[in-house]
């Protein structure tokens, strides 16, 4: 059985809510039922068939041919199977996913991997703001699984992150890891702004350095820690090469404005 393919007919005029297109919700639907799924976000009541050509059948292997920054909520709540998008995606890609895998060959909008609990999200381009972060009012961001962004990420990546791993190969925008509860954020490029503000626990490995740290982060000096080696190795096996190798880094503890049990690792230099 060949994978289910959604081929985008052209740039949609409105944003699309593609949350119904996960294996759990497509399973058992006929092709014509799939065509009739409502995916529009305006009063026009747009149907899937208006926007995509559909082929293939295996709902556990979904592919989008052609992307757009207006394709929102791809893989929302995904728990199994795989989704591959050839192109860009909009907001909330992989939000609240619990398992399975999503690959985006282009870039993603805001809230990619928002509050995800499990599974793996790979964005080969860049990600927007609040990568892995919570929605309005939610007290927890990402709480499991792994995200890799091969480009850069927007502001507030890993906000309120509670568990799991995020690797950003490029730069990350202002105030990464704000209000972090626990978990691990690894950044290959520069961390802009003041990362880690209001973090209670958790680990920031900023291999490309930070623009600045708040005075409620305290220098603990260079540290040669087994955990760094172990993480480089284990996360590398899980997500591919990571931008640190386990050699000694300078450790900062903070944010003492709140609990102060978080840590930031910066290159020795």
């Amino acid at each position, binding site marked *: 059985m060949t994978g289910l393919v959604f081929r985008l007919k052209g740039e949609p005029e409105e944003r699309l809510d593609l949350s119904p297109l996960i294996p759990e919700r497509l399973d058992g639907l006929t092709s014509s039922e799939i065509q009739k799924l409502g995916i529009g976000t305006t009063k026009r009541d747009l149907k899937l068939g208006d926007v995509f050509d559909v082929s293939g059948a295996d709902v556990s292997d979904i592919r989008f041919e052609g992307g757009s920054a207006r394709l929102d909520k791809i893989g929302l709540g995904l728990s199994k199977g795989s989704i591959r998008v050839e192109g860009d995606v909009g907001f909330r890609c992989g939000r609240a996913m619990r398992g399975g895998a999503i690959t985006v060959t282009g870039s993603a909008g805001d809230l990619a991997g928002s509050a995800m609990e499990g599974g793996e999200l790979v964005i080969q381009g860049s990600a927007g703001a609040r990568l892995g972060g919570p929605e309005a009012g939610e007290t927890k961001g990402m709480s499991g699984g792994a995200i890799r962004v091969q480009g850069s990420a927007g502001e507030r990546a890993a906000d309120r992150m509670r568990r799991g791993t995020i690797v950003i190969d490029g730069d990350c925008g202002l105030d990464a890891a704000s209000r972090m509860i626990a978990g*691990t954020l690894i950044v290959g490029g520069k961390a802009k702004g003041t990362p880690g503000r209001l973090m209670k626990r958790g*680990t920031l490995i900023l291999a490309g350095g930070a623009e600045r740290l708040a005075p409620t982060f305290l220098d603990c000096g260079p540290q040669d820690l087994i955990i760094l080696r*172990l993480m480089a190795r284990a*996360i590398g096996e*899980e997500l591919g090469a990571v931008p640190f190798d386990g050699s000694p880094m300078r450790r900062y503890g903070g944010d003492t404005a709140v609990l102060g049990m978080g840590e930031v690792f910066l290159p020795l230099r």
Partner: protein
Amino acid sequence: MPVTETAATINGVSIDDSFAEAFPMSGTAIQITAINEKWALEAATKMTGFATSVIACGCEGGIERVLSPAETRDGRPGVRVLFFGFDAGGLEKQVTTRLGQCILTCPTTACYGDYESDQTIDLGSAIRYFADGFQISKKFAGKHFWRMPVMEGEFLCEAKTGMTGDGVGGGNLLIMARHVEGALKASEAAVEAMKTVPDVIMPFPGGIVRSGSKVGGKYKGMMASTNDAYCPTLKGVTDTALTEEIGSVLEIVIDGLTPDAVAKAMAAGIKAITDLGPETGALRIGAGNYGGNLGPHHFHLKDLLP
């Protein structure tokens, strides 16, 4: 006088038609790494000290083998250590107590679970409070670790390790020789061969025990007492299992995470002893049992011949 049939004679060493009777135990494995092999071994040796018999030591433990850096979790030299106990609770208590005293304390070490199972016992999760609130929990790539600041740096310890309730304790060989030199030589050869088998330990000193025991004794409260049937000095006055030419007997006790591992270890031991031959080594190989009614595992020697 008990009559023991001979199952086979290989290279001049006769093998009893007998079996080792063994018992289910809860078992686990951990990995200890350190800056070099010396310190990994120091920690492992201390941790497995006084862990010969579950009856008096609370658990049985031993070094399974030394691991090369390529084999360890963090790429440093390491040691794999196995522990066995009556049950999961007892095992966990022993392992965590020994972990706290012998690994946490030992310079440069780190400690990881080294047995995959859904059933687990605590490692770092049990001793993390030593860090007085400064402990850090890390979960990544499906694993959970505790990091504890210590004066030397940071002690890294996996939160839990897998355990099995289907481990086996009490696999054994009785090595019977003309005199103690031969018994020791044969036993040493057997232990060396057995060490190449994964998932087993021989918990007694050098893997060898001279004070093999029977169940109970004449004194109230003794759970075990000397195995008089195999004591050469009592050959005449007791119901002996020894023939006249046997002047000394040693025993190798084997604990394994699986029955198969115990069987493989026993087979390796038998091969090593028979390869050595009766002149420099042992005349006869036997096994200890209690008539077959106590332990569910019966390792028949005739099934384990080279």
